[in-house]
């Protein structure tokens, strides 16, 4: 009679180790995040300092006296050594002070909070479309490798991630808005619907539903459809391609053979077992896709006159509003860092192997 000892009951020492493991991981993650954030601030600080325009002159004008010039210079703090200037800059940033916008004369932070939800609404919808359709398409392409489903999906994906988004947007507007009239035009809402719905989340679709304003809801949806579909298609292309690649990798594994040998249906083998292992890798892909969406917002919002962060930054750029540009850069950078952190945290939820310190 053969027996085997099962792992011993959990001792106190082991409990400490079990809790300490994840805590240590979170600690390291925070450390890395802080370091990256500091790096980001360094870059924005550096860019801000490198501008050819003399900020002092911008304030005092070129007819001021030397004393006025020097006085203003020390007021701004430009006579201090660079590390000190950086420190002051960092403190300001941590308090959310990005300076004032030249155009709106408002604090940049306020402007950013006003415009960001528009970008968020569009990007979230596009991401959802991309994942909800992209993942199944990738799975289908992998399981029908070489057959027509695979060819069609790969072809569609290829077009998607080779396509310049601004061009597709223009063509889309031309065909679906100007010629066919199927969707609403540029902008988030028809002018007549502006300011009817009180801002709660900043996402017009959500806010209008809360307020019960169904006309506004449908109108905003009509404006969202085209840009979200286009962005959704581009995201879908990337997600489908990566999913297909990951799935092909999984389908070669031994455990797939074993699950088939158990007598499970191919459906379960693919959609529960193989796909279950692919989610781990897809977390990074989804975070990347969302990052791409935010980043490409500048182009999309220009084409669709979408009043979000991208359009704000572009206008600031052309109005030489450096504070606004750098503030926007910082915001996008922070969101990027946040996305990375989030995917690192989600990882152990999806992959049991990542749950303990190896």
């Amino acid at each position, binding site marked *: 009679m053969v027996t085997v000892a099962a792992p011993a009951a959990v001792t106190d020492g082991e409990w400490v180790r079990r809790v300490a493991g994840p805590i240590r991981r979170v600690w390291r993650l925070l450390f890395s995040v802080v370091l990256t954030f500091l790096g980001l601030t360094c870059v924005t600080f550096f860019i801000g300092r490198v501008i050819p325009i003399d900020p002092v002159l911008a304030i005092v004008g070129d007819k001021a006296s030397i004393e006025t010039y020097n006085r203003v210079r020390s007021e701004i703090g430009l006579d201090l050594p660079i590390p000190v200037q950086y420190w002051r800059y960092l403190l300001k940033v941590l308090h959310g002070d990005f300076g004032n916008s030249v155009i709106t004369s408002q604090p940049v932070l306020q402007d950013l909070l006003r415009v960001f939800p528009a970008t968020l609404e569009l990007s979230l919808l596009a991401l959802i479309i991309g994942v909800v359709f992209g993942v199944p398409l990738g799975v289908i392409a992998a399981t029908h490798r070489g057959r027509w489903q695979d060819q069609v999906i790969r072809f569609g994906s290829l077009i998607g991630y*080779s396509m310049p988004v601004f061009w597709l947007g223009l063509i889309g507007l031309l065909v679906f808005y100007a010629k066919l009239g199927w969707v609403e035009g540029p902008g988030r809402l028809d002018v007549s619907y502006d300011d009817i719905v009180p801002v709660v989340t900043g996402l017009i679709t959500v806010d209008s539903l809360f307020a019960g304003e169904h006309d506004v809801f449908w109108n905003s949806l009509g404006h969202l459809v085209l840009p979200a579909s286009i962005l959704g298609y581009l995201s879908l292309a990337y997600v489908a391609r990566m999913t297909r690649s990951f799935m092909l990798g999984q389908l070669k594994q031994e455990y797939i053979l074993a699950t088939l040998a158990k007598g499970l249906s191919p459906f379960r083998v693919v959609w529960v077992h193989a796909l279950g292992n692919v989610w781990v890798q897809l977390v990074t892909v989804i975070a990347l896709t969302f990052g791409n969406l935010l980043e490409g917002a500048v182009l999309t919002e220009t084409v669709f006159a979408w009043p979000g962060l991208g359009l704000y930054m572009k206008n600031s750029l052309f109005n030489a509003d450096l504070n606004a540009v750098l503030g926007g850069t910082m915001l996008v950078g922070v969101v990027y860092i946040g996305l990375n952190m989030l995917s690192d945290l989600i990882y152990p939820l999806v992959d049991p192997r990542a749950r303990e310190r190896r």
Partner: protein
Amino acid sequence: MSAALTWRGWLLDPAPVSRRQARLGRWFRAWLAFQRNGLAMTGLCVVSALVLTALAAPLIADPRAAILQVLTERLQPPSASHWFGVDELGRDIFARIVFGARTTLIIVALVSAIVAPVGLAIGLTAGYFGHWIDAVLMRITDIFLSFPRLVLALAFAAALGPGIENAVIAIALTTWPPYARLARAEALTRRRAEFIEAAELQGASHLRIILSQIMPLCLPSVIIRLTLDMAGIILTAAGLGFLGLAAQPPAPEWGAMVSSGRQVLLGQWWVSTIPGIAIFVTSVGFNLLGDGLRDVADSRSS
């Protein structure tokens, strides 16, 4: 006829007698595998067409036509005299597309020339020497990895003014991290290999070992990754051009051409559409080529 047969036979000889024969034979077999893939060959054709067009631009189209504004002829549709039509400032679009290929190629080449050496240098150093050097370099790599490309280019343009150089720098700054990671992974794997120890025992310096032994092993993955990335770089550069941040007028650049045709999109669709098609086709070409190269590399290693 028989000469070609002998060449082929020599290259495919299963028992090569010299290192050169073995190496050339490997390359030839890889080429044969690549050739079998129709899509990959299409990609190669497109990329070759781009390179040839860019290099031979003055022979294909009149350089003055790309810049010369003939306002009496503005907004002509495609015809025999103007194959792609005329834009809103009276310039021949075909010529601008041809010369725009140069701009595209320059950006792609410059970015590659910066990204590959820098990424390899950092990654190989980090992986080879390990310890604190690795930690520091990887920290730096991670920081750059989390910068948004387009937005950073925007910020650069805001500070330094628009222009191709700034666009190239911005794109390069955000593109090199994955190559460092690739090189580091390769260096870490090979570091403990016996042939490296053998080289050390022979008295090879670290630099020599890195350059002659480890780096060649990274090159295939780097090249494949670069080709695939180029598609994205072209799209980003076109995006910057669309915003007016890359090549400055009157220099022809495909993204800028799409932008300038926006006002007349409804009536004169060709002004925006054709440059967009050029961007799209080039991007597809690089993607197909990169996929094809990767398929060949995968099948060789499996």
